[in-house]
């Protein structure tokens, strides 16, 4: 399946990915409203890690054997059988943090939207995830490496 891959040698650490992710998951979906009026109520699903010269953006890996999926006690985390995308349904989530505990890359966060977990949905409905589309240095790639390997 198509996944997001980060190239840390090219990541600027500008955090535009976080900003655009936040906007895409806001109510208004307008950047100024999202970053001002809705500030503090939305969690970017993408997280930039930074240490010295190395920076990269990280989102849910949509693992083949997703630990979060098996740890989810409510059934809020599911896999779309058609696309393989691991999705999180906030309406079913009660914020038990089992997924957060299980994710080996630390890509699930406590959401600010409510007492629920927050994770990347690969921007369902968009041609490409907004973090990828808005990376000014193409440090994020959205591609199917398994397919390419075949």
């Amino acid at each position, binding site marked *: 399946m198509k*996944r997001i*891959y*980060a190239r840390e040698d090219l990541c600027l650490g500008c955090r535009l990915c976080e900003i655009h992710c936040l906007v895409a998951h806001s109510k208004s979906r307008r950047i100024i409203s999202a970053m001002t009026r809705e500030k503090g109520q939305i969690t970017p699903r993408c997280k930039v*890690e*930074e*240490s010295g010269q*190395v920076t*990269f953006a*990280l989102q849910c*890996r*949509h*693992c*083949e*054997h997703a*630990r979060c999926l*098996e*740890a989810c*006690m*409510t*059934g809020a985390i599911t896999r779309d059988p058609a696309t393989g995308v691991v999705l999180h349904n906030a*309406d*079913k989530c*009660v*914020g*038990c*943090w*089992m*997924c*957060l*505990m*299980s*994710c*080996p*890359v*630390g*890509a*699930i*966060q*406590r959401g600010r939207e409510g007492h629920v977990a927050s994770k990347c949905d690969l921007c369902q409905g968009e041609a490409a995830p907004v973090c990828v589309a808005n990376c000014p240095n193409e440090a994020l790639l959205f591609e199917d*490496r*398994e397919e*390419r*390997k075949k």
Partner: protein
Amino acid sequence: MNYLVIGNSAAAVGAVEGIRSVDAEGKITLLAAEPDHTYSRPLISYLLAGKVGPERLDYRPADFYEKFKVEAKLGQEVVAVDTAAHTVATKAGEKFSYDRLLIATGGRPFVPEIAGLAGARGAFTFTALDDARRIDQYLKESAVKEAVVLGGGMIGLKAAEALLARGLQVTVVELADRLLSTSFDRAASELLEAALERRHAAVCLGGTVEKVIANNGAVSAVSLTGGRELACQLLVVAIGVVPNVEFLKSSGLKLGRGLVVDDHLRTSAPDVYAAGDVVEGWDFLAETKRPLPILPLACRQGRIAGCNMAGRDESYLGGMPMNAIEICDLPTISVGLANASGEPYEVLAVRNPERRTYRKVVLRENKIVGLILIGDIDRAGIFTGLIENKVDVGPIKHLLLAEEFGLLSLDSEYRKHMVSGPGIEV
């Protein structure tokens, strides 16, 4: 192929999903003692608290059985398994045959011998939906003001939290010197006790309920170790769960502390598999077989057992204890041998009383084997991954408890491996 699944929780559902990932056509019959659609067991405390309605209990969507082509026979308790004849018998006297059988009957609450407990109204266990319903009913019918929860483990604490939400005066009684005694240390417990106390719950450590005092057959008080008496109109017994294997006594299946399985989750009888809280699974940290009644492992075992039943060859590499639980707005996570101390263990810990946080990592030969995070739990999964992958963290020990700990703190090879996505490297 004729698959028979006994159980209807995480392991059973995982097995159905596992079977169907391999075999789209085989017949699957599911037998469950409870009459309900597969529901999330841990959510019963949320239901009792009124945080979720009954419509949110479904562990899988309403069309789950239909979609996975499962003939679900709910409310059919299995009372015997005949491994030679490849049949199981239900309480109602029906017989079902199988080509492959999965036993995923979970655990049942352990209720110790307590004087006056048997038959007393207002005393409940708290592991099934029916328990929540009955407690809810009892709260509505009777004038309950005070409740005692016996057991400061996961279930007891979630029960206590739910009862607090219902406006009761709650006392948690725990025999050990700390809450969540299997995974927490004193420091962690203290933060949890404080969180409970901020909600006006009382915590009684180092004692137990010796006697239940009833009035007209209904619980009116309990007497604790040392003679102290606590007035209460509701008692929840939540000491723990044990594998639900009673009905297998005559089956000839090998039983230890739970149903014994091999690394393919096969029991001692051919074509019989088991998964979830009912089994005695491999604990790769303690390096022993023991029941590890936690939902993620049940789900994983179910899926692996299901795949194997359908003909794939997948090993279960073992699990470790791990739990995330939030009590009274205090999020906590504990993983692995969180409580280990002395040789050969090394403990790193930081406490921040102001922020009410506590972070502790237990190392064994420079590998993380245990973790406690209280308050500040973000990115806990990275530690879990390090434990599971047995990563040598010697060189980054000083970074483990740093505020900015993340994937970047790790060795770049491991980081790249994780960033490509575990299991999806290409």
